[in-house]
């Protein structure tokens, strides 16, 4: 073996690749054969998803799936698949690889298409007679399709940031006021005795706490 041929690894066969090559791009590349309708999706959703996401995808026990369209610029934005997602193909990709939560990658392609159609319909993005497949899904225009943009400053190590603080050293503010703090009693009620989180030796109490012998 030459210096740049380590002789490691084995060739991946097309069949091996096909089994793991499940990603779907915004332009639809990677979508498998298959199809599913909103009505078919409703049945699958009720059986596999509603227990966590609610019949109408509106349960916030885990994640809300529908609603909030147009709310992103308000003071109470609700970010959901319907209101926030830019490409429907991403919904397919995600459900296919990660849902249902307790047993992912267990739906067939047809089933993923169907439940994708149903989730889109929950936010009125597709009509009730929509059938999702390789051709139709990339053509769905999500409400927030044009809502994403790139900020180069955070994409490159030497990019220009969006804040420009200075290293002022003296008299940097006229007045400093506390504008936010944790309400009295909150810590004890949520965390119990928070002193338990510290190494006793360094909780900076002059009298070192004891430790029961093991």
């Amino acid at each position, binding site marked *: 073996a030459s210096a740049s041929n*380590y002789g*490691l*690894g*084995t*060739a991946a066969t097309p069949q*091996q*690749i096909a089994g793991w090559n*499940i*990603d779907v*791009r*915004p*332009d639809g590349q990677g979508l498998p054969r298959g199809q599913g309708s909103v009505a078919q999706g409703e049945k699958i959703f009720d059986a596999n998803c509603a227990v966590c996401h609610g019949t109408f995808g509106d349960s916030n026990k885990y994640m809300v799936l529908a609603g909030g369209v147009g709310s*992103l610029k308000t003071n109470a*934005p609700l970010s959901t*698949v319907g209101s926030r997602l830019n490409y429907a*193909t*991403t919904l397919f*990709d*995600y459900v296919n690889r*990660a849902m249902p939560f307790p*047993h*992912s990658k267990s739906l067939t392609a047809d089933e993923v298409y169907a439940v994708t159609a149903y989730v889109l319909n929950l936010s009125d993005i597709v009509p009730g007679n929509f059938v999702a497949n390789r051709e139709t899904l990339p053509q769905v225009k999500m409400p927030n399709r044009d*809502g*994403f943009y*790139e*900020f180069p*400053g*955070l*994409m*490159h*190590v*030497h990019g220009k*940031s*969006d*804040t420009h*603080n200075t*290293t002022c050293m003296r*008299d*940097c503010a006229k007045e*400093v006021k*506390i*504008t*936010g*703090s*944790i309400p009295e009693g909150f810590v004890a009620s949520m*965390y119990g005795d928070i*002193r338990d*989180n*510290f*190494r006793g030796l360094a*909780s*900076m*109490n*002059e*009298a*070192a*706490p*004891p*430790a029961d012998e*093991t």
Partner: protein
Amino acid sequence: ALPALAHAGEYVPDPKYLPPNLAPWSQDLGKPVGSDPYGLPSPFERSNIRRSSPGLTTTTQSSVAFSPLQNQFGIITPNGLHFERNHNGRADINPYDHRLMVHGLVREAKIYTMEDLLRFPSVSRIHFIECGANTGMNWATPAVPTVQYTHGMLSCSEWTGVPLSTLLDDVGFDRKRAKFILAEGADGSGLTRTIPIEFALDDVLVAYGQNGEMLRREQGYPVRLLVPGVQGVSNVKWLRRIKVGDQPWNTREESLQYSDLMPDGRTRQYTWIQEAKSVITSPSGEQQLLDKGGYYQIRGLAWSGRGRIKRVDISTDGGRNWRQAELQGPVLTKALTRFCADWHWDGSPALLQSRCVDETGYVQPAMAQLREVRGTHSPYHNNGIQTWQVDTEGKVHNVQV
């Protein structure tokens, strides 16, 4: 389960253990060498653990356990305390069955065993990993009490692995057409992220080593991606697949999540870089200073996804006046840096802050400056200056000014 370590004032040392007397361990034979072939901390350290934040998530399998920064020394996170963040629980993988597939715009798609990966030329580097959502609870107002919860999605280790560029060369990736790679995990979430080819060819590692041993299961055993300086989620754990492509994938973890909702309702996407950030770890939230007039060294951590930390300043009056802190060497790129500054607490209230500058000249912003640009619904990339209030009783609180 051992009882909780007791608290200040509850313990009176037994004089028979103190000078001029002898404690039992000074006379009795200790535990045999080799009692613990793989050692564990003293039980007296049992308060130094990862913790989940009560009520933060509704399922323990998509959740986070924070690293106890209030107890941390130096810059190396001990492996048992590295913060843990999963999206479908912790996969416990048999390394002999695990495979890494590299394919796409390549000459020869390949599958590697762990045996293969350990045979490639390897490098070791000290880098932090910070979740993009770290300090997210602090965006609007202080919500959690200790530095473990405010900043504990942060850890730093010596990572060992194969440079991704070595594997890409091994499969003969298409230098002309390749613009992005997709990294995918083998856990139940199958988490995917887009990595730009410039990063992939620069300092990205396919890593299996963590502080001298194999990765911990919580950190992706047996192999993960290590993308220095970039949001934690890009450091895909339980790595099973790398695909070379020419367009970004817009995965769920870079569209619905880990993207930044701006005040105008639009979303910034692919905000990879974790910008320079610092925090005082001691004194910090919920600690108790009792020694009025006493010395309390101000200690903390600083880090930047853009490279090395150049400098850290500290303030004890809420940002009105600042002085420079000392940096503990070696100061490494995209790694934690420890800083220290002398301080005597005169017993009066104080507002402690740290502010870092990285090698690009970028200065850590105040919370107000961040909010002015990002709003309060971002909720990622909160690298704002942290304020700890020391009150009249010497109790320390998480506040904002």
